[in-house]
């Protein structure tokens, strides 16, 4: 029993990181119907950036005073999110915007190319081996504060939730309540009509990429502080997990992406624990194929269902 609960906790923590990346896929797909292949690699660059900032620039370690550590992690988060947002917007500008009028497969192929470019830039700078940092957050079991010892929720897992959940809420607020969010929804429904109504379509799309990139950067920081490791191929594997989450929940649907990410995090954790870790990837892809074949609109339904 404890083992199952423990696996669920690990799965949910993984799922929260997936959710941050999955939202980037779902936002971009919702607005320009492009599978932004390079998105996972933007996340990967974000994780490397966080790694450098944490281990070299700020030289954080387990002995840093807590308040100081929180402040510095916030700064790292801000810098990384800003940088990955900038990268994502430049990618849109260079590789996707010129192809706005091309057939749909052209930007997809361009995105694949961009993904390889980003991966190899990381390979060139950081080398082929895994890069790791020491765990800097205190090693405590949060649940021992309320007297439960058999199940562990680590400080890292709490940190994942503390960073991710506010970001998800902020995004929901932004898309549903602000004027720019309304413009995004209008563009997603019909870019031509939105343009005629005075929405600056190019700007709206750029802002979508900006938000997606910032979320991927946050996911990169969380990845470094939670899993403590990154590698140049991380973006491909992680990106496909996140994309599967987005499809599972119904692509274009924000709540769906988060739900899909949770489900996929659990699938990952249970497969790692009860099957074998070397089959996990195959299982994730089987889920992806299964969802696309049997229910292409996903769990919560696609907002643009008729296009599937």
């Amino acid at each position: 029993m404890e083992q199952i609960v423990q696996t669920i906790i690990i799965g949910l923590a993984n799922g929260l990181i997936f959710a941050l990346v999955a939202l980037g896929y779902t936002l971009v797909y919702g607005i320009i119907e492009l599978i932004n292949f390079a998105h996972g690699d933007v996340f990967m660059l974000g994780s490397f950036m966080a790694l450098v900032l944490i281990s070299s620039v700020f030289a954080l370690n387990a002995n840093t005073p807590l308040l100081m550590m929180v402040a510095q992690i916030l700064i790292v988060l801000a810098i990384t999110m800003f940088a990955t947002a900038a990268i994502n917007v430049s990618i849109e500008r260079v590789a996707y915007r010129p192809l706005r009028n091309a057939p749909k497969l052209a930007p997809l192929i361009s995105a694949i190319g961009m993904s390889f470019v980003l991966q190899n830039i990381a390979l060139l700078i950081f080398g082929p081996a895994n890069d790791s940092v020491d765990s800097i957050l205190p090693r405590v079991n949060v649940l021992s504060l309320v007297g439960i010892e058999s199940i562990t929720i680590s400080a890292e897992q709490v940190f994942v939730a503390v960073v991710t959940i506010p970001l998800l809420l902020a995004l929901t607020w932004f898309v549903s309540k602000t004027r720019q969010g309304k413009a995004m929804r209008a563009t997603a429904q019909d870019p031509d009509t939105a343009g005629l109504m005075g929405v600056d379509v190019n700007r709206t799309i750029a802002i979508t990429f900006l938000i997606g990139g910032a979320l991927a950067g946050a996911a990169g920081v969380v990845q470094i502080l939670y899993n403590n490791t990154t590698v140049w191929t991380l973006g491909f594997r992680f990106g496909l997990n996140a994309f599967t989450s987005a499809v599972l929940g119904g692509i274009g649907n924000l709540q769906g992406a988060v739900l899909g990410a949770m489900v996929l995090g659990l699938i990952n954790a249970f497969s790692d624990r009860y099957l074998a870790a070397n089959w996990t990837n195959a299982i994730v892809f089987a889920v992806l194929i299964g969802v696309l074949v049997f229910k292409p609109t996903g769990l919560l339904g696609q907002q643009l269902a008729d296009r599937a």
Partner: protein
Amino acid sequence: MSAAAKPIKPGLVGWFGYLLESAMAVPGAYRDALVRRPRRTIALTALIVFGLLYPILNRQIFQPWNRASTFPLPFPEDAVVTFMIIFAIMAIGLNIVAGFAGLLDLGYVAFYALGAYTAAFFASPHFGSVTFILFSEAPPGFPGIHLPFWILVPLGFLVAATFGVLLGAPTLRLRGDYLAIVTLGFGEIVPVVFKNLSAVNFEFGPIRLVNANLTGGNLGINPIDAPRFFGISFGSNSGIAAVYLGLILLLGAIVVARNLERSRMGRAWMAIREDEVAAEMMGINTVRTKLLAFGLGASFAGVAGVMQASYQGITTSDFFQFSTSILVLIMIILGGIGNIWGVIVGALGLVFLDSTFLPYLGLRFTAINPDLPNPSQFNFLIFGILLVVMMRFRPEGFIPNRQRAAELRHAPPGQAIGSAAVLGEEALADEAKADEIAAEQVAEVEAEAAAAADAEAESATEGDQPR
């Protein structure tokens, strides 16, 4: 193609007569082409003769030049030439799926792997507990299953085509980008399965496997029998012989692909590529047509896989990465998607670039200064940039198919994303052009429907007669 217009009599004799007749028509057709398009024909002839003589020239002249560095460019070695040909076969196959039918397949490497493992299973001592030798030149009593190369090729063809149809049947109704992702998933699953099935415990009725090593795991399977005909080996240490074997397969692939392109099926593929709804309205069975494109395209990779395994004598799951799928995709995009000659040139060029030119450049760089970066280490950075730049400036490739070029330059109306209010006159002009092209397409499909009636006899044989 005057010889093909007549319906073929059934039976073996009829086929033999057809082949004989076609062969006898070749000199006349050649003379005809020489008169009608002399420059093109002579250039093509020279190219074919050069291609046939290349392996010998390479060994006798070019390789000594390489060693003495008389010529500023390196010449590929026999092994690289063989892989150029293997990849050219794959590029022709992917071109059927992605170029003719317009279905983006990002997991093409899966079928390559299936072909390679087919050869590995049926022509190696891997299954040592059984001894089964059929027509093979393996010594009698040698453990394992041993089939000869000329059975493996159609077997690899069939296995890959079967899996192509199995994957395609449920997924081909998905829209383009979803299909791309599904195939990518399949391309990732197949090598994982081959990698992990190294200790299988399984019991079902009379079948009982205890810790059975089905696929060789990480180490893969070796040694795989080299292709042998009449006692002559065509394996990796045979040099020129393997290149000629590859050339024969490539020739077969070209003939099949050319005939498919011009068949009723080929025209149906292109109609679907341009507008699926319109094609369906014109009476094309889109599901069956797409499935055939998928299966036939996959089967080329199966043949290439058989060639790879038999040639190298080893196959492991590490050969079949996502990057290989993308490499083949870059070949057809670079060469000219939809154009058989273009994709062949793309394949030859890219393998040359990857296996000969970049390492050579790296050697030159390190000779100047050992700290300079080695370009062969970040080949995929170069290929990635190539993809982005090609999509931006020349999506139709360097040797384009004219029809495909028009489609790639202008999306049909209603598909493109972008607003008239923002883009202004440019968008309006684009839309006018797109309308023009759409009108052309409709005319084409109509013409095709008219032609369909008298192509009945032709299509009956063409779909299932690939080799």
